[in-house]
């Protein structure tokens, strides 16, 4: 299985994401500079955290206008698994690949610590290795992670089981304690907490690794079905 890790100017979790896929999981991974807009030939795409374009205008807004996002939209439509973490989540929202928006944390602070998350949906290709309602420990590191959407969108998210992760102790004011959501098709997941920073025991938790093992297993199953 081959992962692409997209690197924007200002990405700063790209190496961690690469390390999680390549070393913690043991799959193939490549760092892809955003100007090399070819995303074909990868089995999954990872959009890392950071401060793409210095968070100018709105977090993720400038990155969402780049050519690579056109390729990303094409891959999303094709069903390629896409995981956006932190700034990667912000980029997915600004690109319209996921519904809603992220606004400033309710307490106005940049928060950086481990949070307990509840796995609300373990039936996505990113979460099958978790138990339903399993509580996992994964770090957050953001100033604008307060998920917002209107009531109608929220009702749709609930109806289609798109809320994948929620915070046990909401740290940022997100509606419905939302920490991560998936698109209706089930192949694009965005989340504020960093599973790649919890992919090895040495890092204080390896609870995030199951996201990567889930992706690998589901890719293998699909590969076996298609072969």
């Amino acid at each position, binding site marked *: 299985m081959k992962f692409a890790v997209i690197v924007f100017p200002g990405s700063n979790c790209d190496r961690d994401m690469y390390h999680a896929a390549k070393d913690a999981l043991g799959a193939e991974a490549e760092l892809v500079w955003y100007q090399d807009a070819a995303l074909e030939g990868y089995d999954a795409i990872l959009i890392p955290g950071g401060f793409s374009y210095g968070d100018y205008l709105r977090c993720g807004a400038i990155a969402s206008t780049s050519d690579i996002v056109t390729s990303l939209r094409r891959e999303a439509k094709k069903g390629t698994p896409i995981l956006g973490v932190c700034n990667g989540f912000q980029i997915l929202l600004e690109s319209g690949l996921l519904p809603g928006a992220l606004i400033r944390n*309710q307490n106005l602070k940049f928060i950086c610590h481990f949070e307990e998350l509840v796995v609300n949906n373990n039936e996505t290709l990113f979460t099958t290795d978790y138990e339903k309602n399993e509580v996992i420990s994964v770090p957050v590191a953001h100033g604008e992670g307060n998920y*917002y959407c209107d009531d109608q969108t929220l009702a749709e998210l609930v109806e289609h089981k798109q809320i994948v992760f929620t915070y046990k102790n909401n740290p940022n004011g997100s509606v419905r304690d939302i920490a991560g959501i998936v698109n209706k098709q089930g192949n694009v997941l965005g989340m504020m907490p960093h599973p790649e920073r919890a992919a090895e025991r040495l890092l204080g938790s390896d609870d995030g690794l199951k996201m990567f093992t889930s992706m690998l297993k589901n890719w293998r199953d699909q590969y076996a079905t298609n072969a």
Partner: protein
Amino acid sequence: MTKVSIHVTLKEGVLDPQGKAIENSLSTLGYDGVHDVRVGKLIEMFIDHEDVEAQVNVMCEKLLANPVIENFTYEIEEGVAQ
């Protein structure tokens, strides 16, 4: 030269923690009657092309404002010296 001033504001109902913090500071300074402080953005630009209004609308929808959380208004001034 056509000058465009675009105001981007948070939609009603969207929490504005920055506005709240400013409100608290104003209260500390003794301005007690101040409430519902909201922070927005002013984006100014000069445009050479014709059909400015249509262009500005699309710019706002595509990039300058996020329709999920923000509204926009703009003023167009013709014949402004840059």
